[in-house]
Structures are given as C-alpha cells and as structure tokens.
C-alpha cells in the first residue's frame, strides 16, 4: 500500500464554493473524469467515497440511497482532475448493475473487504467484467477496505493478523498480474483513502480525455446532445459550466 502522499492530494475547498487556498495550478481547467465504484455489497464503497469527499465516516451507514454522483477535485502539480464519482445505488446487491453504469468510465475503484475472502473473488469478477466491457483505457484500482478491523496477532510469531481473511501479498500479487493499482484502506480511520484517488489521478491518460471531453450538461433543462465538430452549439452541447470553480 502506498503511504506517501507526495502530491497536494484532493481539494475539498472547491466543494464549499470557495477559491481559497488554490495553488498556481488554479488556472488549470479541471479535467472531468468519470469514476465508478464496484464491489460486493457492504464492503464500504460509499464510505470510501464519503471519506474522500467529506473526510468523515458514518457508523452503521444504511445502504446507499439518494446520490446520483458526487464530485471531488484532485489537484496534482500539473493538472486538476475533477472526479465525478458514481455509486452503485445498491444495484449490485442482486447482480443487477446496468452496463450504463460503467459506460465511458475512465477510472474504477473495485473494493473488497480484507476480512471477507469471498469479497475478493467478487472484486475479481468485476475487474474481468470491466476489462471485457468498459473503456479499454480505464484505470482500475483495487482497494482492500476495513483494515481497521484487523488486529496484529499478539501471541503469533508470524505476521498473522486476527480477523484478516485476505493476505496483503495475495491481493497485491493479483493486482500486479491484472495491471491494477493496489491499496489497502480504512474508510473508518481514513488510512490510504486519498492515495487511491491521487494515484488514479496520476495514472489517468489525460491526453486521451482532453481530446474527447464528456460533455456533462449541468443545465438540466437541456439534454446532452453531441454536436459534430464545427456545428453551431446553440443548444444542448457546450462545455460544462461546472460547479463552483
């Protein structure tokens, strides 16, 4: 797991609508990146995002209701990435996640629970599905969540930890083999959460995205109609006038 947060990390000031604390990179136009969360029910997908976006944790959080997607900016030295983070809205519970969900996603965080071996198997099947159906350039991060539930085993001579069902090395080896970023996280304590998003931000092939921006239209009386190059954008199209930045 990567512990060094060399970069400025994520920026939550933009959400509050302020321009405060912006570094010289503030004049960079944020690049919008659609990021989807995947993983078995109750592994902590929403908590991970809640920690990243609000730096908080809710105990006994109910299954996800009510949010279409959250946005959060992540600033690196040379670019600003605005993550549009999509939650499953519970549709994964009965294996009913719509393909529309990961359509055009440029990044995915596939989450499992380090205290539940079966959740890694489920994560692997999501990775397979993404590699089969999603955008071929998608950046995928594997995140083993709930490391706060793992206790070092006191009388053990080996490295075993009580509660852990997925050894770090095993998951790491799989991630390496499948070409994924790998992290272990605790949404509850906050460990490793920022790194997931910062490392994804670094790995996103920006040239590719800049050349074909997703035109999210924030004026809800209009519909996202893609105009051919050179067409008069009198309606529908146009770059997103997004958020408070």
């Amino acid at each position, binding site marked *: 797991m990567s512990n060094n947060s060399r970069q400025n990390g994520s920026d939550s000031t933009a959400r509050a609508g302020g321009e405060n604390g912006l570094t010289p990179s503030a004049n960079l136009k944020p690049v919008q990146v659609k990021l989807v969360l995947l993983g078995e029910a109750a592994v902590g997908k929403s908590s991970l995002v809640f920690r990243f976006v609000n730096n908080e944790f809710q105990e006994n959080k109910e*299954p996800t209701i009510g949010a279409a997607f959250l946005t959060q900016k992540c600033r690196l030295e040379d670019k600003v990435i605005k993550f549009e983070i999509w939650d499953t*809205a519970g*549709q994964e519970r009965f294996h*009913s996640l719509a393909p529309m969900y990961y359509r055009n996603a440029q990044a995915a965080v596939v989450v499992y629970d380090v205290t539940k071996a079966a959740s890694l198997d489920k994560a692997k099947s999501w990775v397979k599905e993404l590699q089969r159906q999603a955008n071929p350039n998608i950046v995928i991060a594997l995140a083993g969540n709930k490391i706060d539930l793992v206790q070092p085993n006191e009388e053990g001579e080996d490295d075993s930890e009580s509660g852990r069902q997925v050894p770090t090395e095993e998951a790491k080896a799989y991630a390496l083999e499948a070409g994924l970023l790998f992290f272990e996280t605790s949404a509850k304590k906050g460990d490793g959460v920022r790194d997931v998003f910062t490392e994804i931000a670094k790995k996103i092939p920006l040239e590719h995205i800049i050349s074909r921006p997703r035109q999210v239209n924030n004026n*809800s009386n209009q519909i*996202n109609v893609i105009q051919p190059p050179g067409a008069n954008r009198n*309606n*529908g199209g146009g770059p997103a006038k997004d*958020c408070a930045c």
Partner: protein
Amino acid sequence: MVRLDEQYDVIVVGTGLTECILSGLLSVDGKKVLHMDRNDYYGGESASLNLTQLYRKFRPGEEPPPELGRDRDYNIDLIPKFMMANGELVKMLTHTDVTRYLEFKQISGSYVYRDGQISKVPASEFEAVRSPLMRLFEKRRAKKFFEYMQNWREEDPNTHQGIDLNSVPMSKVYEKFGLEPGTQDFIGHAMALYLNESYLNRPAREAYERIILYISSVARYGKSPYIYPLYGLGELPQGFARLSAIYGGTYMLDKSVDEIVYDSNGQVCGVRSGDKIAKTKQVIGDPSYFPGKVQKVGKVVRAICLLKHPIPNTDDVDSIQLVIPQNQVNRKHDIYIASVSSSHNVCAKDYYLAIVSTIVETDNPEAEIKPGLDLLGTIKPIEDGCKDQVFISCSYDASSHFGTVCDDVKDIYRRVTGKDLVLKQRLRQEEEQREIGET
C-alpha cells in the same frame, strides 16, 4: 439487507422503458419499489442487445461470426424508435435529471419515399425551396399551410381563418389550402407520423399538435426532429432504473416471476419467485408477465439488418428515418426504416444498422417489408450460416417515437397513485450534497 419476502408498495415486473420510468417516478415519490426482470439484462422488449445476446435470442445455438467484431461494440435495439427532440420523453428525462447519465446525437435526416425516389423531408425553408417533393406552386400552398399551423393560437380567433381545428377533420384543412395528395402524404406520414389514413377523418387538432411537435423538434438541433442516445435505446430504461435505485428501489434481474398472487378479494397481494413471495399492494408490468390478462391487438414485423454501407440515396449520412407511406406501396400501414451506425456506438466501425418495420396485414409478414429491404442496397451476406443478418421479431408497438410510451406512463401513474403526473424539477444531487457539506 433487502429480502424478497418483504413488504413493498409497488412491485414492477419487466424492465422495459415504460416500467423503468414508472419505477423511477414512484421511487422519487417515496414509494418502496421492487423491480424484477426475468432476463439478465435491462430493457425487456426495449433493450439493446450485444451480439451474444442477439444471437441467443434469435439464432440459438449459433455463434456470431468473428468478422462482426467485438461483442461490446454492439447495442442493437429490439424496437426501433427515435426521440422527438421536443417531445414528452425529453421532458421526462430532463425533469428527472436522468439526462445526466446519457448522451445523445441528432439523427441526420428524416426521409420519405415517393414515386420510386427517396427525398429528404425539408428541415428548413432553404431545404423546402429546393425540395423535389413539391413543384413551385405547391410549395407556395404548402408554405401558407405551415404558416397557418405555426401562427394558430387557440385563444385568438383571428388566427383560425374560419376553421375550428377542434372539430374540422384534417382532410378539410388540407382541402382549404389546396394541398396535393403527395404533399398530404409526406405531411401526414413523415411529419405527423400517422401510420395509416384514419387521421384524415378525425378532428385536425391532433394532427396540428403532431406537426407542431415535428417543427419545433427540428428547430432545436437543425437537421431532423430526432435525437438518439449513444449506445442505443436500451440506455433509457437503464437510466430510469438508476433513478429508481438511487431513491431506494430494489433491483433483481434474472429473477423468474412465477406467479402474481391475489388475495381472497381478488386484489393483488404479492409476486412469487420460486418459493419466495414478495408482498405488495400494487403490481405494474409489461404484457408478457400477464399472459392471461392481455389480448393481442396487432402484430408488427421487424427486420434488423446489418449493412456495410449507408442506405443508398440518402446523402451517405450516418443515421436516418425513412418513411414509406402506405399509399406508395399499396398498403394500409406505412413501412418505417430506422438507421443508425457506429457513430452512435451501436455497432462496430463501418457498419450501419437498419431496422425495417411495419404493422402486419397479411399472413406473409416477411413479404410485407420487402419494399423497405429493397431500398437498403446489398444486405451483405456476412458468411457462414448467418445468411443475411436479418432477424425477425414480433411485438405490439409500431409507432416510431415515444409519444405512446409517455401516454402509457402517465396513464399508469395516474391509476397507481390516484393523481396526475406533474413533472417537477428535482433538486440536483450535487447541490444537495453541497448543502450537506456546508452545514
């Protein structure tokens, strides 16, 4: 965790567009919704399928030929429809914010077949002047007719020119402006999108609404009145399903619906799947889940064709609607051709998809769509066993856009909730989140 044997307010069976819109609206209203589908994909009859799913459905036991390319590149609509840019479905999408999950493209042109030729339905005055569909004097008459339509205001009798659109049949309105049968044909069938001639004897108000919808839809984006979602129509039910899920709706695909359960008073009380019964007060579903309760009212024949070229004589554009009015081919119902292509992310690069459909009038439906197939140029045989890439399915719905779907949604919504559907803007999620973040 949600379980099947819980109590729901509404159980929706089938994930077609109508069902998904209703599921979304009802979840937003705060109802506890369970939504099930027997298939392992969203959309029911209004799904868009990849090659594997398409072959499983129409050519069981056959593998898609490898030269068609990757499975993920295909999203083939089972039912071809385009969306009117100014239509009711667009309103439903924007008012529920579902539009944020989707992207659309214009359909490049609306065409009509007449006297053996394919012509573009004029999308501007400039195009109208050059259109071969009318001769010079007829163009003047048509111009007067359209001016009358666009200026007509119900509350202003000065704009009525002595005709009451609410009572006078459409045939009389054509007569007043002296429009030739050929002109009536393209106005009635390619603009008002009537599938047969019965509208001529009905009050003109309905045709007026349709013509104005067409004109105002063309005015929105310019080339044609139609827009189409990238990745196919199947994105629409998925979008509304997500809306429902976001508001707490529970989704179960690949779930057999074995019985609709009624109580001793004959009221519905549950839906059985296997040995589990989910309890509910109301059930909504598509006809295929209620075989005993529906009656066949008509049959539609459709051919899904994969082409290696655009439809000939349509300016090589990437997408069209082509209407063959019934008069032109001695039928009672029009033949429709809807064509989209790889630029809509529905098929592999350099392929074009054309769906020919009409309402069945004889016991040889394949022959009925031949006039449409003949306009497609060579339907390339794509090797072994797949012959012509023509897949035929039957269903109930032949209209070319979503007006009837929306009417259906409103009607069912009223019957389920006891109130009319009022589309109001829902608070944007991002704003909600931001508000929470600030407090």
